[in-house]
C-alpha cells in the first residue's frame, strides 16, 4: 500500500518497551492522521550475546543458555544446535532418541503456538481467548515436564541422543490430552476464529503478498499463510520427518487471519505427528555416550530445522578445540521483524496490535 504525503502535521509515536502491546521491544511510528507512514523498529533490548558466549563454553555447556532466547520453544532452538554439533563431533544418535526428539519438538511447537494464541486474544481484547489457551497449555507443559523435568527449559536434547527415556504411561496420557484438546480446537474456532469481531479486526489486515514474503525472507507459518508451500520438515527432512505422513497447512490470503489459521491447523498437525511417532517407536538405547571431552574435528557444519516460528538455522565453525570457534544462529523472528515494518506502513494505527502479534515476533529470539 502506498501512502501519499499530504503535508501537514505528523506525529511520531514511540511504542515500547514499557507498553502492554510491545514486550521487550520498541517501535517508532510516524503517523499521518490515523495512518502509519513510517515504522522503524528498535530491537536489542534483550541482546545478551548468546553467540559470543557460545565461543567460550563447551559443546554441552552451550545447550542451557542457547535455549533461553526462545524459552517457549526450547527444543525448537536447541535441536538444530545439537544436530549441527553432532555433525562436528561425528556422532550418530540412536533411532529411539530421534523419535523422542521429534515428540519434544512437536510438543514445544504446540506450547509455543498456544502461548501465541493466548497473547493474540489479549491483543484483540478477547480475555476468554487468553484464559483458554493458557489453561490448555498447562496440559502440554505437564506432558513435556514429565519427559524433560522442568516446565519450560528442558535442556533435554544433548549431542548423542536425549538425556533420559520417556516415562511409562506417557503414551496413554498424551493420547488422552490430544483427545481432549481436539474438542477444544473446535471450541476455539467457535468462540474466536468464527467470531465476527475477531474477523473484522484481522481479515484483510496486513496483507503480505507472495512475492514480498519471498523478497523479505519470511519463513515458517507467516510464509505458508502467504500461499507458499514451504516447510523445512518436508523440504530438508531431519530426524525421521520423512517417515511421517503429515500435511502442511497453506493459506493463500496472506492477511492476519490466514496467519492465525495456519497456526491453528498446525496445532492439529503436531498432534498427528506425535501420534504417529508414538506408534512407530521401538524400545532401544536413547543415547550414544561420548567418552571424554567433546572435541570436534576442524571444519564447519550447518543445519536448518523448522522451529515454531519458522526456519532456525545454525552454522558452527570448529577449529578442533573444546569450544566452538564460531556459532551463528539465524532466527526466524528477525525476519518477521523486517516483515513487520513492511506491513505496518500504510495500515491504520488501530491495526498495529493485530498485525504485530499475528507475525508471532518474539523479541528475545530476534535479539539473541
Amino acid at each position, binding site marked *: 500500500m502506498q501512502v501519499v504525503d499530504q503535508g501537514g502535521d505528523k506525529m511520531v509515536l514511540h511504542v515500547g518497551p*514499557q507498553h502492554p502491546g510491545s514486550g521487550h521491544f520498541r517501535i517508532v511510528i510516524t503517523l499521518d492522521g490515523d495512518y502509519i507512514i513510517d515504522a522503524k523498529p528498535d530491537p536489542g*533490548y534483550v541482546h545478551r*550475546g548468546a553467540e559470543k558466549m557460545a565461543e567460550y563454553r563447551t559443546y554441552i555447556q552451550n545447550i542451557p543458555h542457547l535455549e533461553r532466547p526462545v524459552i517457549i520453544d526450547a527444543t525448537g532452538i536447541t535441536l538444530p544446535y545439537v544436530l549441527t554439533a553432532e555433525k562436528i563431533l561425528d556422532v550418530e544418535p540412536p533411532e529411539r532418541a530421534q523419535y523422542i526428539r521429534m515428540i519434544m519438538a512437536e510438543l514445544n511447537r504446540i506450547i509455543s503456538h498456544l502461548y501465541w494464541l493466548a497473547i493474540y486474544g489479549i491483543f484483540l481484547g478477547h480475555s476468554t481467548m487468553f484464559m483458554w489457551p493458557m489453561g490448555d497449555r498447562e496440559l502440554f507443559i505437564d506432558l513435556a515436564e514429565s519427559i524433560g523435568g522442568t516446565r519450560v527449559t528442558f535442556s533435554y536434547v544433548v549431542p548423542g541422543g536425549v538425556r533420559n527415556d520417556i516415562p511409562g504411561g506417557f503414551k496413554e496420557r498424551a493420547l488422552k490430552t490430544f483427545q481432549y484438546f481436539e474438542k477444544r480446537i473446535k471450541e476455539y474456532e467457535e468462540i474466536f476464529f468464527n467470531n465476527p469481531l475477531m474477523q473484522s479486526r484481522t481479515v484483510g489486515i496486513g496483507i503480505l503478498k507472495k512475492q514480498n514474503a519471498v523478497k523479505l525472507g519470511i519463513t515458517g507459518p507467516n510464509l505458508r499463510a502467504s500461499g507458499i508451500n514451504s516447510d523445512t520438515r518436508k523440504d530438508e527432512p531431519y530426524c525421521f520427518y520423512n517417515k511421517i505422513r503429515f500435511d502442511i497447512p497453506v493459506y493463500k490470503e496472506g492477511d492476519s487471519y490466514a496467519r492465525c489459521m495456519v497456526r491453528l491447523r498446525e496445532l492439529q498437525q503436531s498432534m498427528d505427528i506425535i501420534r504417529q511417532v508414538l506408534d512407530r517407536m521401538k524400545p532401544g538405547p536413547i543415547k550414544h555416550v561420548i567418552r571424554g571431552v567433546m572435541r570436534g574435528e576442524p571444519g564447519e557444519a550447518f543445519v536448518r530445522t523448522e522451529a515454531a516460528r519458522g526456519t532456525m538455522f545454525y552454522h558452527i565453525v570448529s577449529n578442533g578445540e573444546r569450544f566452538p570457534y564460531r556459532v551463528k544462529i539465524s532466527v526466524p523472528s528477525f525476519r518477521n521483524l523486517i516483515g513487520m515494518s513492511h506491513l505496518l506502513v500504510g495500515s491504520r494505527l488501530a491495526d498495529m496490535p493485530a498485525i504485530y502479534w499475528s507475525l508471532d515476533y518474539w523479541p528475545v529470539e530476534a535479539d539473541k
Partner: protein
Amino acid sequence: MVTDPTLNLLVGKASDLFANVIEKNVREPIRYLINWGRLYSLWPVHLETACCSIEFGAASGPRHDLERFGMLEAFGSLRQCDILVVQGTVTRKMAPRMKWVYEQMPEPKWVIAMGACAISGGLYVDSYNVLQGVDKIVPVDVYIPGCPPRPETLIQGIIELQNKIRKSKV
C-alpha cells in the same frame, strides 16, 4: 503567666503524653488499615525485560491465577502501578529504561527481582551486555530465584512481599 517556665514544662509533658496515646491508639490502627488496603491490590507494571515474562504470564493464567492472592494482571499505565516485577535479564540497553520506569511510579512502590538473571546475572554472568544484578540500579524488596522461577515460586515471593508490606511503617 504564659512565660512561666513550669507551665512550659507542663505543656511539654502533656504533649508527650498525648503523642504517646495517639501513637498507641490511633496511629497503629491507621497504619494497619492503610497497609491492609495496599496489601491486596498490588498492580504490576507491564515491563518485560527478558524471558521470565512467560512464567509471569503463566502465573496470571487460569491454573495458577495470581489474582486470588491480590496481585492484579500487568497493566499499561505506570501512574497507577505500585509494583515492578523485573522479569529476568536486564541488559545495558534496558537498564536506563527500567530506572526511568521505576522513578515515574508513584510512592509507595516495591520491586521484585524475578529469576537468577535479575538477582545476579545468572546464566549470563559472563556476558558483555548484561547487568549483573538489578539491585545495582533499583532497590529490591523480594528476590525470587529460579531460571525461570515456576509460577508457584512467584506466588510465594508475592506472599513474602505482602508480609513485608503488612509490617511496614506508614
